[in-house]
């Protein structure tokens, strides 16, 4: 019983971390149809922002929840203005450019902070489930993931910006004819996607080693989740995270964490063969 509770908690944590690391990517992919290969580096920048500000005496909650998203969001807007905008409509070139950006950022951070692993202590304590111990940070991550998903629903469904964003997502030229400037919508989208990624990076800083190359540990899962989920931001991320998070954690529990990842990849490849446009290409069509 206790073991079941702990495994359940692990599955929950797997799902939550998938939501966190892939939501920013999914926002950008869903709105602009581009894959940001520098996604892992955005996560890394978010984590660095948290570690550096905490080490300089800033409250860790403020660092994670405010400084990281704001900083990475600004970086995102800068990238969109200087790089992405030039390559609109050239999907493959955008991928290549963001990959170049990813190497560039890794190199830059290595040059500034060195190739060392930093970290911050995990806030919140632990709790006891029968014979097992777990820490409170995991349920907190799950809560934040849930709040983020709710936030996406609220923004897209109930705000004016959400209406404009959805319109641009469906038919950019029609939205443009009705007086919306798609250019600005894309800029805001990229900034928001980057900010969400930065927040995820900040939140993951206490539970992972913060190093210049940490991004590559996350991007594989994030890409699988977004590709598996398909074009809908919310339904895609949620369903793919639910599916892949459970598969990954159960696989890890039954074998090793690494083979859990392999099982995840095999499942995703099979899924792509059956549903080439992702889960939301077939089910929940037209959802958010």
């Amino acid at each position: 019983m206790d073991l079941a509770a702990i495994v359940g908690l692990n599955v929950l944590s797997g799902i939550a971390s998938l939501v966190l690391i892939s939501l920013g990517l999914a926002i950008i992919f869903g709105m602009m149809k581009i894959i940001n290969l520098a996604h892992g580096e955005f996560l890394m920048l978010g984590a660095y922002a948290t570690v550096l500000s905490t080490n300089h005496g800033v409250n860790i909650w403020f660092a994670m929840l405010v400084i990281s998203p704001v900083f990475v969001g600004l970086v995102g807007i800068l990238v969109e203005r200087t790089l992405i905008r030039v390559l609109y409509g050239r999907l493959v070139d955008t991928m290549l450019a963001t990959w170049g950006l990813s190497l560039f950022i890794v190199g830059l951070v290595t040059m500034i902070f060195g190739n060392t692993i930093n970290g911050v202590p995990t806030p919140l304590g632990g709790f006891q489930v029968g014979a097992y111990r777990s820490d409170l940070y995991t349920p907190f991550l799950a809560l934040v993931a849930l709040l983020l998903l709710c936030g996406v629903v609220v923004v897209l469904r109930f705000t004016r910006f959400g209406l404009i964003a959805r319109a641009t997502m469906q038919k950019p030229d029609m939205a443009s004819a009705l007086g919306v400037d798609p250019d600005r919508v894309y800029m805001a989208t990229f900034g928001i996607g980057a900010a969400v990624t930065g927040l995820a990076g900040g939140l993951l800083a206490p539970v992972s080693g913060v190093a210049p190359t940490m991004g590559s540990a996350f991007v594989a899962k994030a890409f699988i989740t977004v590709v598996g989920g398909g074009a809908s931001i919310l339904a895609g991320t949620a369903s793919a995270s639910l599916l892949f998070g459970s598969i990954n954690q159960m696989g890890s529990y039954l074998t090793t964490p690494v083979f859990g990842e392999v099982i995840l990849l095999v499942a995703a490849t099979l899924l792509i063969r059956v549903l080439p446009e992702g889960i939301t290409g077939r089910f929940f069509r037209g959802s958010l």
Partner: protein
Amino acid sequence: MIRTVLSLRVTLLCALGAAVLAGLAPQFVDTFTLLQATVFVAMAVLALSLGFIWGFGGILSFGQAAFFGLGGYAYAVGAFNFTDSTVPVILSMLVPMLFAALLGYFMFYGRISNVYVGVITLTVTLILFNVVNSTAGDAYRIGSAALGGFNGIPSVPGITLPFTGYAFAPEDDWYLAAGCLIVVFVGLKLLLASHFGRVVVAIRENEVRASLLGYDPRLYKLLAFVVGGGIAGLAGCLYTLWGAFISPTIFGLATSAQIIIWVMIGGLGTLIGPVLGAVAIQVLVTEIGGQQLLDANFVLGAILLVFVLVLPAGVVPTVERGVAALWRRGRRGRPGPAEAPAAHPLPGKALS
């Protein structure tokens, strides 16, 4: 048609020249330079594999490093288990080809877009890295070869010829690598001039039209992908031979990115471009390794960014176009044929 035959003749002549140069090289350069040249040549073979499937097949594989690494590991494992090198070398191509066939089946028969192909191949490479990284300890042995996890496999046996039992010296490795590069280059030229090659290019140009003409794009893409996987595996074998060592780092993002950069700066839709790009970037990376100020990733990322933004066609096609323009200007005034269409379509158009 006449152009193709002519271009094939030129290729064969150049290949002959390259073979003579390669054969004479050990007389003129010291062993250290020769060793470095060997690894550059191995990387040029790897560049050709992506140059073929991306530049001519239009398949954007971010995961050539996976086939490269699999080839290297297949050779290393085979070399510990067999007395001569015939089987290990065959394995180094066969294993990546089988893996490419399996992966390609899921990707191409699922008819996923180019962007998804890029993402999936990249993901596969990253996960292979994690898997091979975790194979430390005695539980992970294949025959008498320990996979060694993060530490990799040291002192991999070199090439031993069957029957005679002759073991290769570093000079022989150079001959082998240079020979492989020439054979792969000429082989790809011939393949591209064949019916199969033309269909592959036709599918890159317009998939719908090609399938309306009765060619199954899925099958041709899959075959091209498998050929690319085999060549990358051969490159992995040459690389392992060069260092007598292989480790999971070659599955890393850095390797995948470098392959893309070689092909990108050399020029899509050419074979000589990727070769030149590989050698140039390898020389540059070696230079960067000798100093402290700049990080290699930083420079490579900047190069990739600049090329995507400023020169997406790559160096070789741009130079070719420039020469062609000068040639036309030189002939202006005399009556001549109408302007010939550009020899290489823009990659942006071809790949979209």
